[in-house]
């Protein structure tokens, strides 16, 4: 009897208690109960009462069962009358939950349609998922100063207080885009264009993760949405559109550029990068990678992450500095990008040394028969340590 009560209490702990404690004690970056934008707020406002009602009903049921256990335990009482039920009571108890749900249904309806609006968009960003990273592509929108398309990956940068619409699609399997603090998730389905509204109230970084199982490195396919104030966003746009600055002759970085041209440019595009003969270097990921795309590295060091946001470009201390900056300072800190002192050299070098070892991918040449020899993910390039030194130096210039 006592045990059963404890059981009932456990039941409460599982569903109900989280509702009361949820708002005060947590700091998990993907908490679904801490909306940071109007879309997520809409969802939160809808779900909190539902959780509360569900908790209360759970308590009532558990209490009723507990009471019955205590009250009607066999203490030698006679076998009771064989009653078969009371229809009136039954119907009442059927109608009450139906009514509760009807009320919930009405509110649900409204929120569903509000969240599906596409006619009040202020900024459109194309988002393309592939195994196991996201590509962000800002189509030309002169009102935002985007006069030529910007292609980025790893971090989605967006202005604060703006109705951003993501047009999602995928290049291979189904992925799902999810920034819990800004909105619910929406699948990126190959062959289809789906929309997702995002809007952030304050500058900052909002974490998310791919939530549709997408193969080996599903767990490592993360995303971060960076909200900047409008001025900072304009600066970011200008920075992204800035012309390519080749490294100075004779530097380590210049040698790195030629390593890049030999190796990396097969898949990775750097806008404005020219070959020795003066022609533009055009990456050909379509010939080497199954998804036909690899992250565009033009302004790599303006981002904080690499390899599908699995690794940080910043050392932990520098990263914490950016993540925990208050709204006023955040923009400046973020736009500072990555410099040599803050660069997370270890992870970057490990990645360049042997990418499939640190992130599970289909890069084993023996298993590529089904893809006509194309990789799924970055292969082991077999770079020498000095090549890696040069490359790191070069990558640091991509800012």
């Amino acid at each position, binding site marked *: 009897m006592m045990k059963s009560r404890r059981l009932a209490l456990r039941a409460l702990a599982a569903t109900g208690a989280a509702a009361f404690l949820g708002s005060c004690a947590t700091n998990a970056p993907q908490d679904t109960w801490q909306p940071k934008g109007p879309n997520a707020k809409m969802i939160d406002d809808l779900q909190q009462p539902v959780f509360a009602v569900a908790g209360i009903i759970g308590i009532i049921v558990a209490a009723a069962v507990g009471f019955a256990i205590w009250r009607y335990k066999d203490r030698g009482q006679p076998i009771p009358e064989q009653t078969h039920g009371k229809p009136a009571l039954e119907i009442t108890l059927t109608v009450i939950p139906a009514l509760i749900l009807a009320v919930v249904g009405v509110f649900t309806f409204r929120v569903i349609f509000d969240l599906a609006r*596409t*006619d009040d968009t202020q900024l459109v960003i194309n988002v393309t998922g592939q195994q196991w990273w996201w590509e962000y*592509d800002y*189509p030309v929108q002169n009102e935002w100063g985007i006069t030529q*398309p910007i292609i980025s990956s790893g971090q989605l940068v967006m202005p604060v207080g703006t109705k951003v619409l993501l047009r999602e699609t995928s290049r291979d399997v189904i992925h799902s885009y999810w920034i819990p603090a800004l909105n619910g998730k929406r699948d990126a389905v190959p062959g*289809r264009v789906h*929309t997702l509204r995002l809007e952030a109230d304050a500058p900052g970084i909002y974490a998310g993760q791919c939530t549709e199982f997408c193969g080996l490195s599903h767990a490592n396919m993360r995303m971060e949405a960076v909200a900047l104030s409008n001025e900072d966003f304009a600066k970011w746009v200008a920075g992204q559109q800035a012309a390519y600055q080749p490294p100075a002759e004779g530097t380590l970085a210049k040698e790195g550029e030629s390593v890049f041209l030999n190796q990396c440019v097969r898949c990775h595009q750097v806008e404005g990068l020219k070959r020795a003969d003066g022609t533009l270097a055009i990456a*050909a990921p379509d010939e080497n990678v199954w998804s036909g795309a690899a992250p565009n590295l033009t302004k790599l060091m303006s981002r904080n992450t690499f390899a599908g946001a699995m690794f940080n470009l910043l050392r932990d201390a520098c990263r914490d500095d950016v993540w925990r900056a208050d709204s006023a300072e955040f923009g400046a800190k973020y736009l500072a990008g990555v410099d040599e002192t803050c660069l997370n050299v270890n992870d970057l070098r490990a990645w360049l040394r042997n990418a499939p070892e640190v992130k599970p991918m289909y890069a084993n040449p023996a298993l590529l028969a089904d893809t006509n020899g194309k990789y799924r993910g970055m292969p082991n390039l077999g770079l020498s340590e000095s090549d890696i030194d040069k490359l790191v130096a070069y990558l640091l210039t991509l800012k």
Partner: protein
Amino acid sequence: MFKVGSKLFLGLSGFASFNLVAYIIFVERLAIGGVALSMVLAALVGLTAIVMLINEGDSESQPRDNALTGASLWPLMTVVGLMLLVLGLVVAQIYFVLGIVVVLAALAEWLVQAWSESASDDPAHNESARQRLLHPIEFPVIATLGLGVVIFSFSRVMLAISKSAGAVVFMVVASLVLLAGSWFALRPALKGALVSAICVVGAVGIVAGGIAGAGVGLRTDLAEAAEEGHYLHRECGVEKSKYFDKKAMKTLSLRSNVTAIIELRNGRLSAVMVGFGEPQQRVTASRANPVTFIFRNFDEAERRMVASLGSAMAAGAAAPETTEGDSHAEKNETCTQLIPQGAEQALTVKYDKPSVAQDAPLTLTVPGVAGQAIEVFVP
């Protein structure tokens, strides 16, 4: 414990396992042969088990010397199969496979017959034993084979004659069947032999027709179509192409969430895209990813939409899905069919190279509508 039957099967199983081991060691591992031999072995072991399990039904002590051995077709069939096998080694694999099938079938029949003949003293019962074991496999196999031959012959006849004649022949054959059936039904006094004779004549006729049809080959338009790939032409001009534009689709069912809808209205092209309030003149298409456009024609004339695929295409790489990649690939464009007013069609295109690698901008145009183009930007 071990009696004649089980000894035979045990011996066979041993032989098969020896073969399998030898095959794996000397020939190759886990190829078709290995699988087939393993299956044979498994089957033999199973048979052995069954035979032992059911005790073969006979004890050795029973007199069996008076059992008569009947004439048998199966040794002959085995030889035929072996000949096919040898032939197959020389000529073509198909005979080899056929030979294996015939040999196996004949051996199986032979084994069962031999076994059943010594099963008991009573020939009638022996025969019924054989039937109980083999009829379940003989009936369906013979029926399926017979049916297959008739059906295949019939289809060869249909393939050889012209399209309209085909429908007529089809009708005639069916009517004949129906009429013959009705006739037999209405004349119950007809002799069974006559009925059988008519059926046999019919079957022979169809098979003969089939052989003749196979000799003739495909009718001309089919042969041409097969050779020329009629429906693969992509002549993306204003004019109607003979096969490709035959009966263009008027509706496009169940298609949603495309990249852009390209509308032709009053001689103007525009792209409607979700998220953009205004119709656009420029579309961003993600690189190396199949993108789908819907073309809607609101003009009176029949129109088609043409997507240029860029110069880099000619350099090689994968041909887009919509072209065959043969002689038409160098045009580097693909298109919808000519569609009338109010109709729509989808076009799925894959741009492998970015716009910067192209000599000229990638576009969506409509032949016959001058000065209108939607630029496709591929980052």
